[in-house]
């Protein structure tokens, strides 16, 4: 059947319309065929295209569509059934493929769209990272600058270098036009331009410190932008261009003590300096945040570095001062030592020189005594003799005074007749008093014990000194000497409240008052009386000579005797009273057996003091060895003699009770013997007592002897009495 399945046209087939349709179908088919070709070509060219399968599908769909349109070209005219069949097949295929493609595209198009969004997202992210990278880099730059600046600043401890380096480095880092530092002045009321970058030595511009802009900067720890017109920022001559932005920051000045602190109400604890930084004037630069931060950090570092520098300066100054003082002290010490040595030498020599004439005086006086004399002459000669004995004692005491000051003087206690002491003093002064026509009276209280224990020699010296002074300073009138036992009430002197004597059964306090009617003493001179070498300046005393030592020595002796001495006077011309109180012991039995610590003063051959005492004597010198042996034999000892330290150590045994060692022999170290003996005899009761014989009894030798463990020291040449007393003292212990 020849039927046409094409749609019945409404109007008869128009040739023109048919022609146009024909042509368009042709072109469509062409396009449909070329699109896949293009696609394939371009996909082949590109490397990445994930959807090849889609492409194939799409290509198939298009090809089939093209085929369909192509085939429809034949349907415009009469066509056979095969054409219709082919047409139908292709249409069916096309339908299938296009539906499949449509279905496929539902999945694929969202994917394709999301690729696009992802791309956009990534682009944004990349931009953001770029920005952050830039920021970090800037920060790192800043950090590097700060570190470098800090390093520069902290590598020196000199204040000026620190400040200068700061300014230079800041200027370099931030490319500043000008950088300046204003420091507070000493008064603290102004800021002075101290350092600038461009000018080497800025003239001292000052600016009062209480400007509002300055207060604003000081009150904040951050860098503050200030106006270029304010006084601290007018650092450059005004140019044609706009001045660059200016920033100021405070620099705390820590612990600087050379600035006086004025009382600032709000900033009383901290001082600040002002650092002003100016950007170049013809650039349009602005202060960035990181630059401001850099400035703040630098300001803090500078503060720390400055404080270090200040501390270093202080300590250097202190150290120099100390060194100077050290040198001066050393010099003073050496001078003092020289002076002391000179004095000691002088004393020793004088002592020695004074004894020689003393011999002459004593000898001649004794000779004189033997000749024929009238009673008056005899009295005079006896007085001379007694006075020279006293003078000899005084010579000893001059040496003693130096020993008193060393503190090594000790009283020589003994039982003596108190009344005899006073009588002797009285006898001594009577002739002089009668010459001066002065009346002297002596009153001894009845309850005064006849015998007492004390240092007779020094007590007499004290009384004599006091009475002698009374004599010296009285031209007429009378002198009365009273002595009695002091009771508690009369013991206290209101001027010496710390003197609190306590009488006991074994002791009593002797109070002696010497009243004279002489020239008296004015009250303000009284305290000076007891100082060495001080004399009151009245003309009367200037003639009387004397070294002014007397009362000083008396005071020392009285103090040693646990007493007190003072002088009362109502004024010049009204006479004065000298009073002293000393503590004396009460002997248990009067005239009893000799107490063991009294040195025997007998020249006769007394009983042997130490029968059978085994003594070892070490002395290199034959003569002095023999003398020492003679001494000891006389005292009844059993003496062994050795002449060298080896022999001494060899011979010494626990039978020897005493070892006498000569320590002033050069070459033989007597001190070593003492050490060796200590080593040899470890038990105390086995060890013999070691005594050093030396020509030198100064403190140093004594200390050395004590240090090596010696038990005593004797001055050579030894007298019999000395040997006896030392041995008895030693053996008692």
């Amino acid at each position: 059947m020849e039927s046409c399945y094409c749609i019945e046209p409404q109007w008869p087939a128009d040739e023109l319309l048919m022609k146009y349709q024909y042509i368009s179908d042709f072109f469509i088919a062409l396009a449909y065929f070329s699109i896949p070709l293009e696609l394939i070509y371009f996909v082949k060219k590109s490397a990445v295209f994930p959807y090849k399968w889609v492409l194939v599908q799409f290509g198939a769909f298009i090809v089939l569509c093209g085929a369909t349109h192509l085939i429809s070209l034949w349907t415009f005219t009469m066509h056979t059934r095969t054409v219709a069949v082919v047409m139908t097949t292709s249409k069916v295929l096309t339908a299938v493929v296009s539906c499949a493609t449509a279905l496929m595209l539902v999945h694929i198009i969202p994917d394709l769209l999301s690729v696009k969004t992802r791309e956009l997202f990534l682009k944004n992210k990349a931009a953001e990272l770029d920005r952050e990278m830039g920021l970090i880099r800037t920060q790192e730059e800043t950090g590097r600058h700060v570190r470098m600046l800090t390093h520069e600043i902290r590598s020196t401890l000199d204040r000026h270098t620190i400040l200068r380096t700061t300014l230079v480095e800041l200027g370099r880092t931030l490319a500043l036009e000008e950088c300046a530092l204003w420091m507070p002045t000493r008064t603290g009321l102004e800021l002075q331009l101290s350092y600038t970058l461009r000018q080497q030595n800025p003239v001292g511009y000052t600016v009062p410190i209480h400007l509002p802009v300055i207060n604003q900067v000081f009150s904040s720890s951050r860098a503050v932008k200030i106006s270029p017109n304010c006084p601290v920022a007018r650092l450059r001559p005004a140019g044609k261009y706009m001045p660059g932005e200016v920033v100021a920051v405070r620099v705390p000045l820590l612990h600087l003590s050379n600035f006086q602190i004025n009382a600032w109400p709000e900033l009383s604890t901290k001082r600040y300096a002002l650092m002003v930084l100016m950007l170049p004037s013809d650039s349009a630069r602005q202060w960035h945040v990181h630059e401001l931060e850099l400035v703040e950090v630098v300001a803090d570092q500078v503060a720390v570095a400055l404080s270090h520098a200040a501390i270093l300066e202080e300590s250097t100054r202190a150290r120099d001062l100390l060194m100077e003082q050290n040198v001066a002290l050393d010099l003073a010490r050496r001078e003092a030592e020289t002076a002391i040595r000179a004095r000691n030498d002088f004393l020793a020599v004088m002592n020695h020189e004074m004894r020689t004439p003393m011999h002459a005086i004593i000898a001649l006086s004794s000779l004189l005594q033997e000749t024929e004399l009238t009673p008056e002459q005899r009295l005079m000669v006896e007085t001379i003799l007694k006075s020279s004995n006293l003078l000899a004692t005084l010579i000893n005491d001059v040496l003693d005074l130096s020993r008193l000051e060393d503190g090594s003087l000790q009283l020589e206690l003994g039982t003596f007749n108190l009344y005899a002491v006073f009588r002797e003093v009285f006898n001594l002064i009577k002739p002089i008093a009668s010459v001066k026509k002065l009346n002297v009276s002596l009153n001894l209280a009845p309850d005064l014990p006849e015998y007492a224990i004390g240092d007779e020699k020094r007590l007499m010296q004290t009384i004599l000194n006091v009475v002698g002074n009374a004599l010296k300073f009285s031209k007429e009138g009378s002198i009365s000497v009273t002595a009695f036992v002091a009771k508690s009430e009369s013991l206290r002197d209101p001027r010496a409240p710390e003197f609190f004597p306590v009488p006991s059964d074994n002791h009593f306090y002797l109070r002696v008052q010497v009243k004279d009617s002489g020239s008296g003493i004015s009250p303000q001179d009284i305290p000076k009386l007891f100082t060495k070498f001080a004399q009151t300046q009245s003309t009367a005393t200037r003639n009387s000579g004397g070294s002014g030592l007397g009362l000083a020595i008396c005071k020392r002796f009285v103090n040693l005797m646990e007493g007190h001495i003072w002088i009362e006077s109502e004024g010049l011309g009204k006479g004065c009273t000298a009073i002293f109180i000393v503590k004396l012991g009460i002997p248990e039995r009067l005239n009893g057996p000799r107490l063991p610590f009294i040195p025997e003063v007998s020249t006769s051959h007394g009983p042997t003091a130490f029968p059978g005492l085994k003594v070892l004597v070490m002395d290199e010198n034959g003569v002095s060895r023999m003398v020492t042996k003679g001494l000891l034999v006389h005292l009844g000892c059993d003496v062994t003699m050795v002449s060298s330290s080896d022999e001494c150590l060899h011979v010494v045994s626990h039978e020897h009770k005493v070892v006498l060692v000569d320590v002033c022999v050069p070459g033989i170290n007597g001190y070593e013997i003492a050490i060796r003996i200590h080593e040899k005899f470890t038990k105390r009761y086995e060890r013999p007592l070691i005594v050093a014989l030396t020509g030198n009894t100064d403190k140093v030798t004594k200390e050395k002897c004590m240090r090596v463990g010696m038990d005593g020291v004797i001055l050579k040449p030894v007298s019999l009495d000395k040997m006896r007393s030392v041995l008895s003292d030693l053996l008692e212990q």
Partner: protein
Amino acid sequence: MEVGQMQGRLVDYTKSLFMEGFLDGQFLQLQQLQDESNPDFVVEVVSLFFDDSEKLLNDLTMALDQPNVDFKKVDAHVHQLKGSSSSIGAQRVKNGCIAFRNFCEEQNIEACLRCLQQVKQEYYLVKNKLEALFRLEQQIVAAGGSIPMMEMGF
């Protein structure tokens, strides 16, 4: 001459020795050590002193004669002499020795030689005096008297 007179002479002579400074108190000490058990103590010690000192003075002369003087040895000798003389109370000799030692420390040869001369002089002087003293004592003892003790305070 009778004993009393001789004793008086002895006393005077001894006193003069002290006055002139030849002897000092140490000599008295020695005399005190002399007793019945030790009757010749002083003479023995003094004789020992003489022998010792002669030897020392000879040694000193030789030591100072050397081209290179050994001051240490010289000092040691002088020290010995000083010790001996002070032990018996020969005051002038002792003083001479003290001065001698000072010059030894300074190593001054001329001064040392001078000192040596002086010490020798003093030594011979005191030796003569002491020998005279002993002769007097012997005379007294031979005449049947006893030696008076010297009472010198200080």
